[in-house]
């Protein structure tokens, strides 16, 4: 039942043939019923595999384990004894690898209730900004427009830096409320994803360091007296790469 061109038909289907050979197979398909049926079978098998068979993604736990083991390789002296001291995390600043922070934080199990509250508030503010047409108050990709705007509208004036060499695009800023505090929000786009970076004066409520809720990641850090939290559903590595750029710019 299989035609002796079957293997070349499969190669054609997989895009493995040179254009000259492709033309030959296309002509063959016009008058060979067996191969035309084979192409249909190949397509339905492919559709089933791509659309209905599970693609297993790595869990955040595995990602954390991997980052931790790599971190252990490249930095043999992590300051583990400071794990319990939250101020250690705030003070990490620019020089420290985001992966190391992620690795350590992903295995942190005890988060205080107020931290959960803060995470929920940040996530709500993020989602609100996506659905309410109130993503930005000042639309600009120009940091010299966004930062001064905050000076007149918010309690803090976080860096609103554009990173033209990166995939993160500064789109503007707005003022929002998180946990009862007025926060300045710098908004970035990363591909199809929105990243909200909230900032408010430090020494307020406990913020989560790194947490994931329903596919949204929240990464917080502290620089000087500025508390910052980035929220997005983009990949966790991508989010941490932006927080690293921001830390460097604050550094």
């Amino acid at each position, binding site marked *: 039942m299989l035609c002796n061109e*079957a*293997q070349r038909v*499969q*190669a054609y289907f*997989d895009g*493995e043939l040179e254009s000259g050979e492709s033309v030959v197979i296309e002509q063959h398909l016009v008058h060979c019923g067996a191969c035309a049926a084979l192409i249909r*079978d*190949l397509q*339905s*098998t*492919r559709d*089933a*595999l*791509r659309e*209905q*068979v*599970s*693609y*297993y*993604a*790595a*869990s955040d*736990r*595995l*990602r954390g*384990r*991997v*980052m931790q*083991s*790599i*971190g252990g*390789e*490249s*930095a043999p002296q992590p300051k583990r004894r400071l794990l319990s001291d939250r101020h250690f995390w705030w003070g990490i600043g620019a*020089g*420290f*690898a985001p*992966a190391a922070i992620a690795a350590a934080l992903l295995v942190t199990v005890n988060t205080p209730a107020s931290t959960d509250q803060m995470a929920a508030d940040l996530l709500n503010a993020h989602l609100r900004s996506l659905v309410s047409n109130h993503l930005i108050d000042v639309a600009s990709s120009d940091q010299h427009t966004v930062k001064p705007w905050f000076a007149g509208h918010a309690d803090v004036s976080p860096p609103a830096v554009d990173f033209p060499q990166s995939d993160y695009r500064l789109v503007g800023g707005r003022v929002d409320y998180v946990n009862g505090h007025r926060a300045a929000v710098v908004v970035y786009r990363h591909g199809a994803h929105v990243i909200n970076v909230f900032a408010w004066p430090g020494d307020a409520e406990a913020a989560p360091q790194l947490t994931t809720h329903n596919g949204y990641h929240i990464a917080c850090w502290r620089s000087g007296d500025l508390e910052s939290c980035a929220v997005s559903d983009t*990949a966790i*590595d991508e989010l941490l790469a932006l927080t690293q750029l921001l830390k460097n710019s604050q550094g």
Partner: protein
Amino acid sequence: MDEKRRKFEMQALPHLDAAYNFARWLTRSPVEAEDIVQEAMLRAFRSFDGFRGTDVKPWLLTIVRNCFITSHDRKPDLPVSEADGADPAFTDAAPDPEAVAISADHVRKLNLLVATIPGEFREVLILREMEDLSYRDIARITGTPIGTVMSRLARARAMLKEAWLDRVEGARNAVQ
């Protein structure tokens, strides 16, 4: 941050899902897959200095496969259970609960069918259809000639199609 690690995070870490999906389909066990991926990523990191190519994904998947083979030399092959078809992480976008139930059942059966295809055929199927890799890359990862990749791929596709048709027609006959 040190340069090697920065490069590794930018070039290799984006393929962590591919590494896990491949390991998951090789082992058919989430626990074993995680152990293999962690081991593979560590080995990859250690040998990253020596990596001169530009295509990280096939290189990484080769290491995953090597780790799988090493770990399987020590352990008996796991039997395939109905649990292989169950995937709590899978969610269907269809809003109709009945449609979701039917489609979840369908997915479970299809997963089970793929899981029961013999390993040497299953791996080429996963690499070609899920990871969209070329014959040349698949040949490199599996350490087999391109001709073997092509014939295994044809067999794997035929097996899946036949098993699937059997199920569908079996169900149809049962209804009649």
